[in-house]
């Protein structure tokens, strides 16, 4: 039994390899970009718009609203990063209704890659917003003794992000596989539906946590003061 789509390798040359995870990701990227292009090439700014444009606008605006609700100022700046995280995980999990499909998010490599992206993006956004010195100072808060703990916190939360998504996705796939052996006719469908739900929830959690981290890293002292006053 294959636990991860990484294990299905189409081509390998030393360090380089082309496995199912990468291929599926490319396919998903293609689908998403083409779909986005098809809808957005005929966008209208009139009062009446097409239903596909409506759907896209709802999705984009909902993501923006959620980011704003978490406390992120200027969510438009981070929309591309957080929105893509959410949409990629959602689409990857949605495709699990297709038979024989294996979600790339069920690969620890993909979830790690996404977690590492967040791990790198958070300080990048923080430094871009506050400057390197002010950002580095946040590791010394409330005092320098906390520096190791802050660093551990950074790493552990990145690990948690990766493992949480992978665990949930992988477990969903595993359960369906096991149930197929025990009760092949009915239960796998229910578990698949449940898996879809779990996938949506995980996409939401992943995106929200990334937003929270970015929000914490980009928050200025004034905003922190306002928040504590509230």
């Amino acid at each position: 039994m294959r636990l991860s789509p990484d294990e299905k390798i189409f081509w390998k040359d030393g360090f380089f390899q082309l496995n199912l995870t990468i291929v599926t990701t490319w396919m998903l990227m293609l689908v998403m970009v083409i779909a986005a292009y098809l809808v957005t090439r005929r966008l209208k700014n009139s009062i009446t718009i097409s239903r596909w444009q409506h759907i896209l606008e709802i999705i984009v605006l909902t993501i923006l609203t959620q980011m704003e609700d978490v406390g992120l100022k200027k969510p438009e700046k981070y929309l591309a990063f957080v929105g893509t995280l959410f949409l990629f995980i959602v689409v990857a999990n949605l495709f699990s209704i297709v038979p024989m499909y294996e979600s790339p998010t069920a690969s620890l490599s993909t979830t790690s890659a996404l977690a590492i992206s967040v791990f790198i993006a958070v300080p990048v956004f923080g430094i871009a917003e506050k400057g390197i010195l002010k950002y580095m100072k946040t590791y010394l808060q409330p005092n320098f003794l906390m520096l190791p703990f802050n660093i551990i916190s950074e790493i552990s939360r990145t690990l948690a992000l990766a493992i949480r998504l992978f665990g949930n996705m992988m477990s969903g796939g595993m359960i369906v596989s096991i149930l197929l052996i025990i009760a092949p006719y009915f239960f796998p469908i229910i578990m698949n539906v449940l898996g879809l739900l779990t996938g949506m929830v995980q996409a939401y959690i992943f995106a929200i946590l990334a937003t929270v981290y970015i929000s914490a890293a980009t928050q200025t002292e004034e905003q922190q003061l306002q928040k504590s006053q509230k």
Partner: protein
Amino acid sequence: MQIDWFTVIAQVINFLILVCLLKRFLYKPVLKAIADREARINKQLAEAAASKAAAEGEYLLYKERNVEFDAEREKALEKVAIDMEKEKQQLLLQAQKESQTLRIKLQNDLKAEQHNILNEVKQRIQQTVLGIANKTLADLGNTNLETQIVSIFIQRLKHLNETEAHQLIQAIQPGGNLVVETAYNLNEEQKKQLENTIREMTGVHPVFQYEIDKSLISGITLKMKDYKLSWNTTDYLNDLQKHMNFNDVADKYWGNEQ
């Protein structure tokens, strides 16, 4: 279950590419469309608000103008009504005046016509009566009216009372012009009779001057300076006119249109 680091790197790169692609094909156009639409709606709302404000302004202006127009119209109508009433009164007055003038003119014309007709009737009656009298006298006594008139006049002269006779004597001066007016020519005999009678009565010899006056119809008038003595049938005819009451006859034929 292990992490394949090549896959991790590849997925990180894939993810970043996806971020760029979606930013280019999804987020930017959608956000731009939303922003454009919002701007457009805001612009339309602002335009609508401006239009509404303008329309309200126009509405108030026209309402005010309507009120002014109504007031002016009422005023004009009142003025027209007053003018019309004045004009009516004036026209009525004028018509009444014209009618009055016409009526008076008509009455005057009628009276004149009536008078003319009466005069004509009177003259015809006189002529007819005198003709009859003349003819009757001729048939009865081989004499005529003119001769009889001269005779009667001479008789009257002779039988004047004292005062009248005295007045006659005083009036007639010797050598003065005594005008004898008759409606017809007197013959020589008649003239001689008249002249002899006056000479006998007054004892003076005036110069007799005979004149014809058709209006006398029949009769004789003596005139010297301020003195005048006459006898004619006009008085009889006036009596006849009174007796016949020509006015009543005229009213009967023409009706009383006064």
